């Protein structure tokens, strides 16, 4: 991994194009933005990992309520600290790109919503999700009663096998019918 766009090798570039839904320009832009996040001495090291805090300063992620989850899901770090390498970053952008398929988008959406990483969306996950969506302030928060009602309704609809949780296939089933998931599950640099 080079430090400037020109140092992103031609082979790598074509491989990245093959492996992501991004175009050449988008990859180059991503690389530029990513190297901007690196500190000076980090720039010389290959394969460096940008800590989550610095990734979250990107304006595209700054106001996203799921920003930490996004970092954690796409991070390949062994320490589970949500740090991203350039390749993880590309993965992120690819999944959130315009041309990514519904399948991959819904897969990652599921993992983002699965707060405790246990492979299903249970009541705890759904509650956290609702809290993320309604913001941190108190006046927008739902009351416990409303929360319970909402979660019950959601489980009623999408928990097809009635095991009290929403699993990946149920989630994808729900998402695939949604008219505007693909258009809103996008992050563009």
């Amino acid at each position, binding site marked *: 991994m080079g430090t400037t766009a020109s140092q992103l090798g031609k082979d790598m570039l074509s491989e990245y194009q093959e492996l992501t839904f991004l175009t050449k320009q988008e990859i180059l832009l991503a690389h530029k933005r990513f190297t901007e996040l690196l500190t000076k001495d980090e720039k010389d090291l290959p394969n460096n990992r940008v800590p989550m805090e610095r990734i979250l300063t990107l304006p*595209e992620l700054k106001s996203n309520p799921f920003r930490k989850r996004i970092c954690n899901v796409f991070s390949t770090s062994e320490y589970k600290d949500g740090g991203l390498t350039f390749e993880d970053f590309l993965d992120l952008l690819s999944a959130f790109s315009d041309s990514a398929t519904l399948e991959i988008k819904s897969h990652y959406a599921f993992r983002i919503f699965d707060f405790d990483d246990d492979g299903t969306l249970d009541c705890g996950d759904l509650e956290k999700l609702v809290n993320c969506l309604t913001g941190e302030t108190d006046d927008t928060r739902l009351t416990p009663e409303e929360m319970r009602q909402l979660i019950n309704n959601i489980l009623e*609809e999408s928990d097809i096998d009635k095991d009290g949780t929403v699993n990946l296939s149920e989630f994808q089933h729900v998402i695939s019918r949604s008219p505007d998931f693909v258009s809103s599950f996008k992050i563009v640099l």
Partner: protein
Amino acid sequence: MAMLIATWKHCVYVFSTGLEDEVDTFQEEHERERHRGKRRDGERAKKKKRGNGEGRKRASRAGREEEKLQARREKKGRRKKSSSDQEAEGREGDEADQPTTKSSKAAKTRKNVKNEKTRKVEKEEKEDEADDEERNRKRKKKHGSNKKEENVEDGNTVKEKAGEVKKKKHKKVVETSSEKETSEEEDNEEEDSEEKEVRPETLTPEELEMLKEAVDERKKLIQGLRGKPWAMKKKLVTLRESQEFVDKYEGALGKGKGRKLYAYKVMMTKKWMKFKRDFENFKTACIPWEMKIKEIESHFGSSVASYFIFLRWMYGINMILFCLTFGLVMVPEALMGRPYGTIPRKTVPRAEAPSAMDFAVLWDFGGYAQYSVLFYGYYNNQRAIGWLKFRMPLSYFLVGVGTVAYSYMVVIRTMARNANESGVGDDNSFNFSWKMFTSWDYLIGNPETADNKFASITTIFKEAILEEQESRKDDNIHLTRFLRVLANFLVLCCLAGSGYLIYFVVRRSQKFALDGLENHTWWERNEVNMVMSLLGMFCPMLFDVISALENYHPRVALQWQLGRIFALFLGNLYTFIIALMDEINLKREEENIVKFNITTWEASHYNISASENSTSPPVTIQPADVPRGPCWETMVGQEFVRLIISDTMTTYITLLIGDFLRAVLVRFLNYCWCWDLEAGFPSYSEFDVSGNVLGLIFNQGMIWMGAFYAPCLPALNLLRLHVSMYLQCWAVMCCNVPQERVFKASGSNNFYMAMLLVILFLSTLPAIYTIVTIPPSFDCGPFSGKKRMFDVIQETLESDFPAWFSKVFSSASNPGLVLPFILLMVLAIYYLQSTSKSYKEANVDLKKKLQTQNEENKKKNKLAALKAQMDLEEARKAASPSAEHQKNNNASPDQEADEEEDRGRSQRMYHSKNGRSPPPHRHYGQLPATRAPVPRNYPHGNQGSAGYLPSFPRENEARMHRVPSLQRH
């Protein structure tokens, strides 16, 4: 390089030994490879145990290692060559020793290859589902994060294993070299494998076939790789491996001549792929304003951006329309038609000449602008113009038709695509889930927008809950109803009033026009357009106020509002058209008079000239002096152009005053004002998506309506859209705040499209009506002298096509053929509609089926679990006599175990009480009898706990045998 040379030499050598031997040699080698592979695999397994981390590192190290190895190999090249030759000789010796086992071995090898391949495929698929499996497993047994950790590692090992199998099979250089501690021996093996790889001629057809399959498979894998939710590193490794494999083996496919061709083909496909990718990149780079829109998208969410995307789409359509009219009508006429001033219709009349260049006149599209290619009247009715023999009137007509046809096609196609994309999006079965899972707009990058979004999501949730709780809240329904009726009545009044106003204004302007425009003020001259624009500006506000009466849900209210504005615009437009029609009729009467006058004028003129000098050449009259008709077509064109101009101006001025000036005032007066202007009353304006979209749609409708009579309209519109793109982008970014009511874009997309379609239909209606029913002016335009405009088609058919064609055409257009054809089309439409309906029904049925099946499955699972439990109990029961027996024997019975047993039983009892099919009690009594021998297997052997323990294995065994049979139920 040395390696390659060595292999080639080897190949040549083998070739000379004969085909038969060659095949066998290869198979022999194959067999050996397999053994080695196994050995290696074992080693690998050992290594794997050392830890996953190392495995990962190994993979990443692969590249570097490979390079190193390459160097090493080069060094050893010479030695290897000789050794490989020796090996080959040795192998031949082997073959001679075992000629009988050859064939069987060969068959086995092939089978092995195949097996391995299928295994590989499975593995790959498994890999795909590894994550899912992992999740499922986890779902069943919810453990702590420890378990999770384990599972992840599990997944990794599966993946790694798959990779290994793959690698083993293909003898990847990467693979082998990735092991750091490669011994000398292994190096040798690697060389062997290399040899095998570069010897494609030795493959049998079946193997070739298989290889081809494998290569295709790999290619498919590469193609689908980007759609896999893997980490990049893994994708990269897989890609490289697959690529390498494909590169290596692709050349091996095909023999002799075919091989070259194949290689060529492969090369070309590669080039083609690269070209395609570059082209895609180029295409995306060519999409205009992409960055601008994305910036807006990130600030204001997708709904505001959807307006700009719609604007861009409009721009594209207008670009095509412009190209059509400009390239096929305006340019040919300007270049090849008679130049300005040669004939009356192309000359400014003498009376108007002095003021023809005045700006005021030009601004009204009179004077020189009126007598130019911009308007219908300028075009000559000469059948073919220029050295190209360009059929001008025909082209004019066809472009007019083509414009409309193309617009219809594009709109309908887009609608269909949108409908496809949204799929069956109109069912409300996942109302809550969608709100939950898809309501966040990930594009939002602006904290303020995010806050608004949070608020709106909260209200959406609360509303949904409320709606769910009390689906019908009917407090004082009579008042609501009354208010709604009242509101609609008021709106209707508004609409009627605005319609009358426009009619009145248009009639008055006709009077002014008859008086002569020069005698009136600017307002009186531009009254119509101004009134229309002002109505378009203020009526929606009025509607907004009125709709507050109705107390509708915001979404419903928005739709009502849109519908009302739509009705207003439409009413205005149609009043305008009706007034225009009146004017057309007036002009036609005038035309008749002029026509009569002209004949007398001509006669008198002729008489004068004849009386002056009968032998003189025909008198040359200045074309400017020739009296001419009013040319209603140009008048219509002019009206539309003026309308567009004034509409554009109003839009821009509103933008500047309403948005920019307001923003400036709010921003700078805020320092010296008694209340907070930014947060309080005037605040900054929001971007009104629906209003802007409607404006755009109506503008387009006017273009469609007027384009036939004013070919310059698409060009003007293009200019307008271009400017408004930049202007509005700027205005949005600099002086608007994100909407409070952030609504989704794509949901309403087709709504807009439907409106566009309606407008298109309604705007082509009058245009078609005038074309079909009103005869064209006698002295201007491309169709002058014809009875109807569409006569140009018949004329072309008669004179430009061979006789048989017109015959065919006329016979094809007779009612006897047309009617059945229409009937057929209607039938087809009916058929398609009914099939689509039945598909929908089938869909619903399937959905129901799925639900019931799910429920049934659930029941079955429960039942199965219950039965399994019963079996478990049986087994325990069967085992317990022995335990008890032992207990009796033993003086110190294991109290703890007994207690445990009791607890288990009570639990079991509880379960059986809860279960739907309580286990028959008799079973307990019977089974021990049938299973009597079981305890005997562990006869009064060991004492105490040791004696008790065997029951656990037994129990497990019983379960293991029983469960499968249960699942079959």
